[in-house]
C-alpha cells in the first residue's frame, strides 16, 4: 500500500489540528476557559499522534505523546499553567508543527526531527553515517528481502542516484530495513519515482541531515496514480463545495418558485418543471463527484492495526468489508479520526492478550472487523471485535468515583454504558498506553459523529466482544429532511434518523411506569412531546409522531403537524447563548423561511 497517497490528507488535517492546538493553548491562560481548552489541546495532540503513527512518522507521534504528557500534568494538577509552562507548551506545539512538515516532505526541520526520534524503533536502529540518504523499509511479507535490497541498491547506483547502501553487505539475517546513501547531486524526483514504483517497499523517507538552505523548496507530495482508463481532474475540494453550496441554494429557490407556480397555470410553469429536472440532474452529478469509496480512508488502517497489535502483544485478524461503499468525501475525512480511535480502542482495551483469550477458551487470534454498508439514505460503519466486552461494573464504579451521574439500579443497558464511556475524560484503561492514550477518544468520537449529523451505537457482551456502529448521512451538503410544525414553528428532522411517521389518532398513547408510551402495532415506544422539549407555550395539540431510530432504540417524537418532505441545505452552527442544545444546524426551507434542524440524538 502506498501511504504517500494520504500525504495531502495527512498534512491538511494535521494543520487543522495544529491550529486548534495553538488556539486552545492560548486559551489556557484564561482561567475560566482553561478546563475546556486543555481537553481540546489534548484531543488535538492525540489526533496528530494517531495520524502520524498511521503514516509511520514515529518521531512526530513521539513528540505529540510528549506534549500529551505535559498537558496531562497540568490537567491532573501536577503542574500549573504558569508562564514558564506556557512557553514550554507553545514551543512544543511549534516543534510539532515543524516535525509534521518535515516528516511529510521527507526533510528534517531545523532542530532535527531525527534528534527527537530517540524512540527504540526498528527503523531507528540503523545508523546511517551520511548527510543525504533514503531510509527504506521493505514489505513485511516480502519473501526475498535480501535479494530485493541488492537489486534496489544496484538499480539506484547504476542510475547515478546512490553511492552505496547501509549496511553495505546484506546478510542472511537482513530484516528489510536499509538505507541508500545518495549522491550529493542525486535527482530526488527520479529517486522518488524509482522507490514509489517498487511494490516491495513498504515505506521510505528521504533524509537530508545537514542544515536545509532557507530556499529549499519542500518536495511536493506526489499526486495519486490515476486508475486505468479514467481521466481524473484534481479539483480543490473547496471549489467543489462552493458549487454544491450554490446549487443547494438554487435548488431551494427552485422549490419556492415551484410553490408559487402551483397556484398559477401560466406558461412559466412548463419552464419551471424543466428547470426543476435540470437542477436535480446537476445536483446528482455534483453529489456523485463528492462521493469517494471508503477505501480511501480504510486503506490506512491495516498497517495501524498491525502496529498497534504488535506494540500491545495482541494477536489480531483484521478484516475490512464494504471497502467500495461510497460516501461524501467531506464526511469520510471527518470520520477518519473517530475510526482511528475506535480501532485503537478495540485493539488496546477490547481485545485480550492471546494468553487471556486461551484461558477464556477463545481462539488466541482475535477477530476485528471494519465494515461499511449502505442502508436507506445513510451509510453505516461498524467496528466489531470479539474481545472481553465492556465491564459494566468497572465502568459504573469508575463513573461514580469520577462523580458522573449514573443509573442507581444495577441494570445498565448498552446505551447507558455508551453515555458514560463518552463522558469527557472517562477511560476504563487501568494504565496509560501509547496506543490509545488516556480516554480522550470516546467523547471526541461521539462529538464528531453528532456534528456530522450521525449517531453512534454500541453493543457489548461481557466476554464476547463489543460492536460500535456509526450511522452517517450520505452527504453533508444536502440532506433529505422531514419538515414538522411544533408550537407554530417549523423544524427540519434529517431523514437519516427517521424510520417512519404516523398519525397519532391511529395509535394509542398509554402510561407505563409514569412515562408516556406510544403503542404502534406490536411495539411500545417511549413518547417525547416536542412541544414540551421546545417549551412551547402556544396553544395547539399534537396530531402526528415521527419515529426516530437511534441505534437499536426507537422513540416517538410527537409533533403538531407533518408538513412534508424537503431537501435541505444544512448550515452547521454553534448555537447562540440560550439556544437549546438540541439543534445541529439551521436551514432555509422551500418557502424561504429559516428553520432549525433538530438533532434527534440529543432529544432522545
Amino acid at each position, binding site marked *: 500500500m502506498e501511504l504517500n497517497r494520504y500525504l495531502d490528507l495527512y498534512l491538511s488535517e494535521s494543520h487543522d489540528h495544529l491550529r486548534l492546538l495553538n488556539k486552545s493553548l492560548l486559551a489556557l491562560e484564561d482561567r475560566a476557559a482553561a478546563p475546556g481548552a486543555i481537553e481540546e489541546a489534548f484531543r488535538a495532540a492525540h489526533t496528530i499522534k494517531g495520524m502520524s503513527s498511521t503514516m509511520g512518522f514515529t518521531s512526530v507521534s513521539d513528540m505529540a505523546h510528549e506534549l500529551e504528557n505535559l498537558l496531562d500534568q497540568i490537567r491532573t494538577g501536577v503542574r500549573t499553567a504558569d508562564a514558564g509552562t506556557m512557553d514550554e507548551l507553545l514551543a512544543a506545539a511549534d516543534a510539532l508543527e515543524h516535525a509534521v512538515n518535515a516528516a511529510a516532505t521527507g526533510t528534517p526541520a531545523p532542530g532535527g526531527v531525527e534528534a527527537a526520534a530517540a524512540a527504540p524503533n526498528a527503523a531507528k536502529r540503523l545508523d546511517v553515517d551520511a548527510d543525504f540518504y533514503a531510509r527504506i523499509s521493505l514489505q513485511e511479507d516480502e519473501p526475498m528481502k*535480501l*535479494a530485493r535490497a541488492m537489486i534496489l541498491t544496484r538499480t539506484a547506483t547504476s542510475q547515478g542516484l546512490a553511492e552505496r547502501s547501509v549496511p553495505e553487505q546484506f546478510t542472511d539475517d537482513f530484516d528489510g530495513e536499509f538505507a541508500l546513501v545518495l549522491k550529493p547531486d542525486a535527482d530526488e524526483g527520479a529517486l522518488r519515482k524509482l522507490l514509489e*514504483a517498487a511494490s516491495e517497499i513498504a515505506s521510505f523517507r528521504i533524509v537530508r541531515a545537514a542544515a536545509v538552505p532557507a530556499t529549499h523548496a519542500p518536495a511536493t507530495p506526489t499526486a495519486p496514480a490515476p486508475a486505468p482508463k479514467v481521466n481524473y481532474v484534481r479539483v480543490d475540494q473547496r471549489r467543489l463545495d462552493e458549487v454544491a453550496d450554490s446549487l443547494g441554494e438554487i435548488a431551494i429557490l427552485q422549490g419556492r418558485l415551484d410553490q408559487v407556480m402551483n397556484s398559477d397555470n401560466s406558461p412559466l410553469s412548463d419552464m419551471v418543471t424543466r428547470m426543476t429536472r435540470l437542477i436535480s440532474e446537476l445536483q446528482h452529478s455534483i453529489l456523485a463527484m463528492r462521493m469517494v469509496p471508503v477505501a480511501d480512508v480504510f486503506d490506512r488502517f491495516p498497517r495501524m492495526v498491525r502496529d498497534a497489535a504488535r506494540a500491545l502483544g495482541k494477536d489480531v485478524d483484521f478484516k475490512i468489508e464494504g471497502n467500495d461503499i461510497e460516501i461524501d468525501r467531506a464526511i469520510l475525512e471527518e470520520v477518519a479520526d473517530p475510526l482511528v480511535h475506535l480501532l485503537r480502542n478495540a485493539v488496546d482495551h477490547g481485545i485480550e492478550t492471546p494468553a487471556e483469550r486461551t484461558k477464556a477458551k477463545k481462539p488466541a487470534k482475535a477477530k476485528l472487523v471494519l465494515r461499511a454498508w449502505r442502508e436507506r439514505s445513510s451509510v453505516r460503519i461498524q467496528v466489531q471485535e470479539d474481545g472481553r466486552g465492556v465491564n459494566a461494573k468497572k465502568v459504573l464504579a469508575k463513573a461514580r468515583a469520577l462523580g458522573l451521574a449514573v443509573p442507581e439500579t444495577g441494570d445498565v443497558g448498552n446505551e447507558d454504558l455508551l453515555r458514560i464511556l463518552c463522558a469527557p475524560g472517562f477511560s476504563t484503561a487501568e494504565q496509560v498506553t501509547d496506543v490509545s492514550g488516556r480516554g480522550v477518544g470516546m467523547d471526541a468520537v461521539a462529538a464528531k459523529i453528532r456534528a456530522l449529523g450521525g449517531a453512534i451505537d454500541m453493543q457489548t457482551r461481557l466476554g464476547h466482544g463489543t460492536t460500535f456502529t456509526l450511522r452517517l448521512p450520505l452527504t453533508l451538503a444536502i440532506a433529505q429532511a422531514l419538515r414538522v410544525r411544533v408550537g407554530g414553528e417549523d423544524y427540519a428532522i434529517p431523514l437519516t434518523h427517521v424510520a417512519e411517521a404516523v398519525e397519532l389518532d391511529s395509535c394509542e398513547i398509554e402510561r407505563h411506569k409514569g412515562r408516556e408510551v406510544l403503542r404502534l402495532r406490536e411495539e411500545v415506544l417511549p413518547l417525547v412531546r416536542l412541544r414540551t422539549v421546545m417549551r412551547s407555550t402556544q396553544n395547539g395539540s399534537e396530531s402526528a409522531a415521527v419515529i426516530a431510530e437511534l441505534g437499536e432504540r426507537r422513540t416517538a417524537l410527537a409533533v403538531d403537524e407533518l408538513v412534508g418532505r424537503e431537501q435541505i441545505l444544512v448550515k452547521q452552527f454553534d448555537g447562540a447563548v440560550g439556544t437549546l442544545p438540541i439543534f445541529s444546524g439551521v436551514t432555509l426551507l422551500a418557502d424561504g423561511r429559516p428553520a432549525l434542524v433538530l438533532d434527534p440524538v440529543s432529544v432522545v
Partner: protein
Amino acid sequence: MLRTVLICDDAVFMRTMLSDILSHAGFSIVGEAQTGKEAVAKYKELQPDLVTMDIVMPDMGGIEAVRAICAEYPDAKILMCSAMGQQSLVVEAIQAGARDFVVKPFQPSRVLEAVQRVLG
C-alpha cells in the same frame, strides 16, 4: 518498435503465462527456450531487449546461462524467475549479472513492474 523478449522456462505453463502477460503489455515474444543451453544459443541468435530466465532448468541451469550470456553481452537485461524459498539462488543470479527477479506465483503487475525497472 516493439520491445523483444526471449522467454526461458522448462514448463510450458510458465512460458504461456509469461508470454500472455508480456504480449498483453505490448512486448513482442521473439523466442522461447526450454534449457539453459538453448537460452544461450537463442540469445546469441536473437539478441532480444529482455530475457526472462527460470532458475532451475535441465541441461544447464538459469544461473549458468546468465553467466554465459553476460560474459559475452554485459548489457544483457535478464529477469530471473524464481520459486519461493530460492533466495540464495536469486542472490547468486544477481551476482552473475541478472538485473531483477520475480517470484512465482506470478502477479502480472509485479512482472511488469520488474520489466519496467530492468528496461529503465
